[in-house]
């Protein structure tokens, strides 16, 4: 027998039986393929992205602002509406400079005000309260929109936000809190003739000021 031929035959002989080798290769291929491809729902990824650390959560921010900042500070910070109306008639610009806030630039400014009076009318859209000075104002019960609740206190700093969508969402969430927590009680209790005290947010245009038909977004009311 030729020893060289024997060595070649031995060299060609696989270390493992062929079926076992194929099975291992198949398992290895399956393992790599399985770990190379991930399929997840797009909606899950979007939701995870929104909830990721650092992503702004307007509902939480608004709830925290409402509970921890606005409600505790409002009674002390709010300007008496009767006094404000007199100041606006006496020196409009001084009154705006002293009492108004706005996160944006322009003529639209917001006041955090308080007052008391007698309910003289109710409608689908508002509760009319007549102040001790005889001036009627409206507490909104239907059209609770805009930035008054967000801006009136001046407690939110615009530099906290790097996009306007977050700002807008905070306004929407605060208005939603008012719709759910303030309006139902106000509508239920406000009957003509009842005495009412209120804290609210008031929007006024500094360049085109009208104080004869004021609508206030209510923040807190009490009989």
């Amino acid at each position, binding site marked *: 027998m030729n020893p060289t031929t024997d060595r070649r035959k031995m060299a060609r002989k696989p270390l493992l039986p062929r079926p076992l080798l194929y099975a291992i290769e198949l398992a290895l291929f399956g393992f790599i393929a399985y770990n190379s491809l991930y399929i997840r729902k797009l909606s899950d990824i979007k939701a995870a992205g929104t909830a990721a650390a650092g992503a702004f959560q307007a509902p939480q921010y608004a709830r925290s602002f409402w509970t921890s900042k606005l409600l505790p500070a409002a009674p002390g910070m709010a300007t008496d509406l009767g006094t404000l109306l007199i100041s606006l008639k006496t020196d409009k610009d001084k009154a705006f400079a002293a009492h108004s806030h706005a996160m944006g630039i322009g003529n*639209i400014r917001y006041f955090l005000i308080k007052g008391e009076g007698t309910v003289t009318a109710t409608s689908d859209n508002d509760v009319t309260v007549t102040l001790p000075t005889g001036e009627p104002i409206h507490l909104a019960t239907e059209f609770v929109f805009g930035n008054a609740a967000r801006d009136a206190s001046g407690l939110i700093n615009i530099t906290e936000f790097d996009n306007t969508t977050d700002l807008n969402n905070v306004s929407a969430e605060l208005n939603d809190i008012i719709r759910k927590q303030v309006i139902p009680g106000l509508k239920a209790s406000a009957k003509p003739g009842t005495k009412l005290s209120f804290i609210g947010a008031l929007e006024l245009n500094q360049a085109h000021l009208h104080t004869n038909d004021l609508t206030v977004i209510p923040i807190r009311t009490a009989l």
Partner: protein
Amino acid sequence: MNSLLHLLQLTFRKVVPPPGALGLFCCIVLFSACHSASDSVNTPKKMAVIVSTLNNPWFVVLAESAAAEAKLLGYETKIFDSQNNTALEADHVENAIVSGFNAILLNPTDSDGSIVNVMKAKEAGLPVFCMDREVNASGAATAQILSDNYSGCVAIGEDFVKGLNKKGTYVEILGLVGDNNTWNRSKGFHSVVDRYPGLKMVAQQSADFDRNKAMDVLESMLQAHPDINAVFCGNDAMAMGAYQALVAAGKASDVGVYGFDGADDVMNSIRDRKIKATGMQSPQVMAQTAARYADAYIKGKRDFAQRVPVAVELVTQKNIADYLTLTRP
């Protein structure tokens, strides 16, 4: 070792000039330093005003207001017209960089396409203050001074709901679908109107902020929906086009038209009770604020809000008298 020392001595003699020449050199350096310092004090600083287009009067007002305010603050200014072309805008930005401008007041051509141009200026150490239109990137521009389109349309939405007494059918004519302002306006409007199930939007279509296109769009909408009660348009040009279509269809008195911008022809139409309401923007305020912010930046201020909203005022048939005294005939 000795030869090495000799070589060093020779080299030293070659490099070091005699004492007289050294004194002259110091004088020249000192003089040129003083000269360049006095140059930087005496030479006026410069602001570049780069606007998307000067074919639209709105942007002409924006550019001229920004330049005028910058001049008032003591700056040289130059207005560049990007002709709605981001490549041309890139050329203007490069020009501003190499020409030694100190700040750019930019009305971006494209919310996404202009980001690279803003970044180029930023990398060159040039602050950019965006006016009216935003770029979709935080931290690229130093600040962006923008119309509060969303809140303006919240106010319009509220007036719309009150005007229709919370029920009816309406159509919406959108602006350019790729423009952020289009969607901010639409979202603000719908954030109010969609809360009222009695109000049904039966059609929504883009007319690219164009008056003639809006007329065509509403004409075809009216064929499918002849009984609508109102039209909400993303700008005043489209509101005027929509009104023309309603006049042609004999429905001008039956359908309320709402616009956005505060353009003269719409303000006059509100006065004449042809159009219901608009949201009045203020290009002057945006431009002046951008120039003042740039001035503050040059003087050392660094803490700017990324986006600064400029209030949009609701103008209706009820308060139009407040605004007609400004410019209208």
